[in-house]
């Protein structure tokens, strides 16, 4: 059984101007010890998925579909059960660690809080566990009594990671865990997450817009555009040989240094990602797609098989490549 299994997830935010469909039918699985990388631009729905898994979305948001955590549907859990499952089964490392910590509470107490609330120990046991956790994330145990402002950005992110591991969850969701960090610190935090994931056999959902970061840490990749997954497959295959034109553009946004193809020739797409209330007809990517042809504005592509363990939502994948000169 998969650790996490998401089936046909739809999320509509309620606003005064009407519903905003942020996620429009997303399905994926994460197996034990597997890292799934979820990539996409701002507004594509990737962070909404992260929040939906732990039911952290604002009240009134309409969520349909299934989110099976160890086989149990999160969307149908009673509040008490949900509280018990959060943090012990699945936890989140949020982006912007600087803002996620309480500035007037010692970091050790903040980590201990999760342990005590979930009944995994009294104050004394919690403190011992926190010491061990800090060591595990590479912080000296004496940092236990520090306040957040005494730590650097990288250290705060380490505290957030320790907190996410506090109740030994089987799934960790990392939402842009390194985005606000400096390049050198980013490399350190990625290494830490990667080591911990292997060591503890964690399943992980790793979310970021930076495809080059994702391909380093993920086993599989899912690329999102306008609320849907448009391509999925083994991380290296998707990154090195993308089947969907959008994945190709994303991969090109983070060029390898030394690749002459990109020297003085930045790769990019015209136009902007669509607003969720204004999704183009047919394939939602067609107005920006360099390969669009006459069927694209009318036919909404599903995820077609594009090789072993790979799928892509592009009409060109589904049918033999039309011979077009001007493409």
């Amino acid at each position, binding site marked *: 059984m998969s650790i996490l299994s998401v089936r046909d997830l739809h999320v509509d935010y309620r606003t005064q101007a009407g519903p905003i469909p942020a996620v429009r039918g997303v399905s994926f699985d994460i197996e034990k010890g597997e890292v799934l990388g979820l990539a996409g631009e701002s507004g594509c729905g990737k962070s909404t998925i992260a929040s939906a898994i732990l039911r952290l979305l604002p009240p009134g948001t309409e969520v349909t579909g299934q989110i099976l955590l160890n086989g149990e549907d999160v969307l149908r859990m009673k509040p008490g059960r949900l509280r018990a499952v959060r943090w012990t089964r699945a936890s989140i490392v949020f982006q912007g660690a600087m803002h996620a910590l309480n500035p007037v509470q010692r970091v050790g107490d903040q980590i201990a809080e999760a342990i005590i609330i979930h009944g995994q120990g009294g104050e004394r046991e919690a403190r011992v566990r926190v010491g061990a956790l800090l060591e595990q994330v590479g912080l000296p145990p004496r940092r236990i009594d520090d306040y957040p402002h005494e730590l650097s950005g990288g250290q705060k992110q380490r505290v957030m990671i320790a907190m996410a591991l506090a109740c030994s969850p089987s799934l960790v969701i990392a939402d842009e865990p390194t985005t606000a960090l*400096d390049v050198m610190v980013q490399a350190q935090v990625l290494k830490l997450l990667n080591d911990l994931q292997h060591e503890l056999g964690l399943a992980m959902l790793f979310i970021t817009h930076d495809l080059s970061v994702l391909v380093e840490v993920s086993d599989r990749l899912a690329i999102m555009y306008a609320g849907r997954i448009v391509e999925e497959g083994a991380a290296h295959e998707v990154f090195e040989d993308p089947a969907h034109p959008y994945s190709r553009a994303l991969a090109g946004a983070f060029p390898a240094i030394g690749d002459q193809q990109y020297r003085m020739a930045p790769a990019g797409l015209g136009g*902007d990602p669509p607003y969720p209330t204004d999704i183009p007809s047919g394939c939602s990517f067609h107005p920006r797609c360099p390969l669009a042809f006459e069927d694209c504005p009318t036919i909404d592509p599903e995820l077609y098989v594009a090789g072993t363990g790979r799928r892509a939502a592009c009409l060109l994948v589904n049918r033999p490549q039309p011979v077009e000169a001007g493409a």
Partner: protein
Amino acid sequence: MSQREGFVGTLGPRIEGTPLLEVEDLYISFEGRVGLGSGLLGKKATEARAVDGVSLSLAQGEILALAGESGCGKTTLARTIMGLEKAKSGTISFEGAQLGRNLRKYRRRVQMVFQDPTAALNPRQTIYESVAEGLRIHGISRSKDGVSEEQLVARALSRAGMRPPERFFLNYPHELSGGQRQRVVIAGALVLDPEVIVADEPVSNLDASVRGEILRLLLQLRDDLGIAMLVVTHDLGLAWTIADRVAVMYLGRIVEVGPTEEVLQRPLHPYTKALLDVVPEAGGVDRPFLTGEPPDPTRIPGGCRFHPRCPAVASGASAAAGVEDRCRGQDLGLLELRPNHYAACHLAALETREGNGQARVLSTPETSTS
């Protein structure tokens, strides 16, 4: 400067011909605050040496990328070039003339593009007003050849890729996408017909798929209008994509500078190598990286300022080569180790000289002019 005793090398290479923009021996520092108590006890304010001796030149139509970690002084340097911070010492010259007190004319010709277009645009101003603001500040209601303000604004928007420009005149920033906002910011710079654009992380706040288009726009402006650019970035991939030359900064100094292909493909300085090592790529996370936090400009180490974090010192490579004492004890500047490729590293200096069959010993210290 007194700390230049025994100093070898230069703070920045000169380029051939007259540079359009030239920075020489620039020092910028910020004073920390002292509490009343410690002040009475005679404690001095800590001084952050944000830019600690930098020389830099930019040729006409050249794109120079200034790269480094946060806190290395790259943004301070860019802001000082714009006249937004005051230098402690050193000079900035434009077309050979040193900048004096009156920066108005200079500011017309050197324009800045900031990182966050949402913060750079006034949310209550229409796009037209935002772009025309520069013209009004400089008292230009029509150009020399009789082009009206409206036409100038339209031309700038159109050059920035907002076409047809009239369509956007009455829009407000919130009605535009992130990429379009950055184009408006660029149009605001272009409207004054600048010769230099200083861009601080011009795409890091933009969506991945939009970045390429903005970078393409910058390249196009250089090609069509001959605008020179100083692009401040932490992203070496960006430098690879658009820069002619790359300067790498560490703790207030340029530690390596040269043509992009040279610096990024045959780096000489261990810090540049470390920065290149942490560029994520499909190789996996098991790559070497520098431990520790970004360095502190209030406590710049003696000797080579990189030596406490230097992998070559830590691994014993510099000891084996017999330069470790120099790494720890001798502050050095940039040395031209390959044609037009400069680096401030004792070990690299030794290795390239050996490779070139030259004497093992570093040249005697140059007499410092200042």
